[in-house]
């Protein structure tokens, strides 16, 4: 049964909803097999370094809504890192045709000792009014923090009252960091609130052809994504539809009518699972049941699934034929050039699987991956959309899969041990360990960039370039001081993972 329940203000966290884990060491096939059988257990760490916070992931999904503003209801430190999304918004805006990206407005209620004792409700209400006066946004998002969650402020009630008073939606998002060790629960918190408060209920009209009522639709396909290149519209145009990008670069209006899209697709299962699931189970918008299009077989399956869903299978076949002709020869060349190369991956769950697929397609031997968490299930109950299972099926197993929420001590130990020719990453800050160890490292933040046939070519060419230009990392390694001791580097990397 779906664990999506829009009648309650707070989303159920991933540990509860999807049995998500943050500790595992083994092969990809073991992880897939244990996930499918329901036998995947969490291996806890008796020692950990840093962790991300759900509030930041929640912010990520709403700071980038074009005409919204965000209020962090908590001590000012909880919003200290949120300015990074202003940067992300600005630099990625041109890729979505936004010529003049407006400044991002992120506020904090700056809860102090006084409010944690006497309650922050009034301060929140006053902040909402102040923010409305200053910015007149189309929508105001409130993200909660540990402090407001513990003192039990009535954030939902205050938001609803303000919405009525101001005449714009005010959306309470419950993303207290202490509720989940899986920071992607923050994405779900934002999606949950958006689905509850912003997305229009589906409308139905009589269909004379069948004599039944059918959902009113527009020629749109929702794309649940972060940011990055618009890879989808050139494909979608062939099917006569457009991409409705959610939730970064969306507007209040485009969020509202996402319930009228023909379908939803995901760039990354771990990112889009909840919104895709909610749009399907609560609004009737079907989610595409195929792993995202990374590597040739997945791209073909994905295009065919899209063709079937949009009832234009012939268009999918045409695209596949054209793109095969355009890219397969170059992919074959790249494969022969990259033969014998080894690579290690570090990224979030879904995109990490995507990078492993790209390595498989390019004939590069994946010698391991540190992925930030693992969801054995998704929110629309589609095992066929599992990206890691697809990777294993298409290109074979991957050893040394570590589910590791950015525990750098583990990463350094493993990298030192497997000593790959290349490190692939998606998150800022993760390639520095490769560089310090003299491993050529490539960081691509744009998830869409590697999609489709062309994405394989682009990745292959970039990897060749990085491998050929290794002077910087070679020199850096000579001068870098490794903060970890020889003792630690000689230990088994998963020493602090509890034995099952």
């Amino acid at each position, binding site marked *: 049964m779906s664990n999506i329940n829009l009648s309650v203000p707070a989303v159920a966290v991933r540990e509860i909803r999807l049995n998500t884990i943050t500790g595992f060491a083994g092969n990809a096939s073991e992880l897939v097999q244990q996930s499918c059988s329901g036998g995947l257990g969490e291996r806890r760490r008796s020692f950990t370094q840093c962790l991300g916070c759900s509030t930041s992931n929640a912010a990520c999904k709403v700071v980038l809504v074009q005409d919204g503003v965000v209020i962090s209801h908590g001590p000012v430190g909880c919003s200290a890192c949120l300015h990074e999304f202003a940067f992300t918004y600005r630099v990625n805006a041109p890729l979505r045709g936004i010529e003049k990206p407006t400044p991002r407005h992120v506020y904090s209620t700056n809860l102090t000792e006084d409010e944690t004792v006497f309650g922050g409700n009034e301060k929140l209400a006053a902040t909402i009014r102040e923010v409305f006066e200053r910015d007149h946004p189309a929508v105001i998002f409130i993200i909660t923090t540990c402090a407001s969650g513990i003192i*039990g402020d009535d954030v939902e009630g205050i938001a609803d009252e303000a919405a009525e008073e101001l005449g714009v939606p005010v959306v309470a998002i419950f993303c207290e960091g202490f509720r989940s060790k899986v920071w992607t629960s923050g994405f779900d918190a934002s999606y949950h609130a958006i689905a509850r408060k912003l997305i229009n209920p589906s409308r139905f009209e009589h269909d004379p052809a069948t004599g039944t009522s059918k959902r009113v639709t527009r020629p749109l396909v929702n794309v649940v994504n972060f940011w990055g290149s618009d890879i989808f519209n050139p494909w979608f145009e062939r099917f006569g539809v457009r991409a409705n990008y959610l939730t970064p670069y969306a507007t209040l209006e485009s969020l509202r009518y996402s319930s009228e899209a023909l379908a939803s697709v995901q760039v990354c299962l771990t990112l889009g699972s909840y919104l895709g699931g909610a749009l399907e189970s609560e609004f009737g918008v079907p989610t595409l049941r195929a792993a995202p299009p990374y590597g040739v077989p997945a791209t073909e399956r994905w295009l065919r699934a899209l063709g079937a869903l949009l009832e234009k299978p012939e268009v999918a076949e045409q695209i596949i034929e054209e793109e095969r002709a355009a890219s397969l020869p170059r992919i074959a060349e790249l494969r022969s050039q990259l033969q014998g190369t080894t690579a290690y991956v570090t990224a979030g769950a879904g995109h990490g699987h995507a990078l492993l697929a790209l390595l498989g397609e390019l004939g590069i031997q994946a010698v391991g991956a540190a992925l930030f968490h693992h969801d054995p299930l998704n929110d629309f109950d589609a095992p066929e959309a599992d990206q890691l299972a697809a990777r294993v099926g298409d290109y074979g197993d991957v050893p040394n899969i570590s589910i590791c929420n950015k525990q750098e001590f583990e990463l350094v130990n493993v990298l030192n041990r497997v000593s790959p020719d290349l490190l692939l990453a998606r998150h800022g800050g993760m390639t520095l360990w490769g560089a310090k160890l003299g491993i050529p490292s490539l960081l691509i933040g744009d998830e869409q960039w590697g999609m489709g046939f062309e994405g394989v070519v682009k990745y292959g060419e970039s990897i060749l370039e990085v491998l050929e230009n290794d002077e910087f990392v070679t020199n850096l390694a000579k001068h870098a001081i490794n903060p970890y001791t020889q003792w630690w580097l000689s230990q088994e990397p998963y020493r602090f993972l509890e034995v099952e």
Partner: protein
Amino acid sequence: MSKQLKQIAIYGKGGIGKSTTTSNLSAALADMGYRVMQFGCDPKADSTNTLRDGTYIPTVLDLLREKKQVDAHEAIFTGYNSIYCVEAGGPAPGVGCAGRGIITAVQLLKQQRIFEELDLDYVIYDVLGDVVCGGFAVPIREGIAQHVFTVSSADFMAIYAANNLFKGIQKYSNAGGALLGGVIANSISHPFQREIIDDFVCRTKTQVMQYVPRSITVTQSELSGKTTIEGAPESEQAAVYRELARRIDEHTDSKTPAPLGPEQLKNWAASWADQLVAIEIGEVRGEKEAI
């Protein structure tokens, strides 16, 4: 197809007889044929004891402490006449945050759609004492309970607690929170106690749902781990609880109360103090006050 689930929160000062009243109410409603859940929101976790022969049940928060993923069914136990018993539980005295405990426990059950699944007619929250922090206000917020009843004796400290609760209800009344159904007057053995409560409800614009006398039958039943409804069904006291249940079942429209301000409350209590002294010394003041 779906019947209307009635969600009720019972509040009152600690030790005033909330759990006794709530359990008897649950038992009486179950006897009327309703499917009832009693949800104890007190870290002591003893709200449902008399529905289960005096035994304690594992609490939602105990289970959450043991493992991260809790199936809400594991925290639901059946008691007298198939009443579903749940205890939120909470931290040991002096540590942690009991308020957050209530938020966490209520969320868990709501997220897993337990109330719908069990096809309940009534969920009755038995909530600890004063609304001391945000967490204790959860059952009256966010449309969780529709009706609040407060248990109070004629003791002034109990009335202060009730007045405080009225402030909480008034605060959330505009935001779709629960409204006040009325006061369950407990331990009412003397006419003057009845007058104090009547005067209080009149000033705060609410009503008395039932006058429950102090009774040895309640104590006897509780000592054998039972509600009065179960332990002494033929007693007068059981009839009092059954009447309370009938009235609550018929009750539909709750209202925003008008709590007394600090000065009003003080003056009101002082005026009663004078009258009580007069009663004590046998002074006859006129027909109304003559006891």
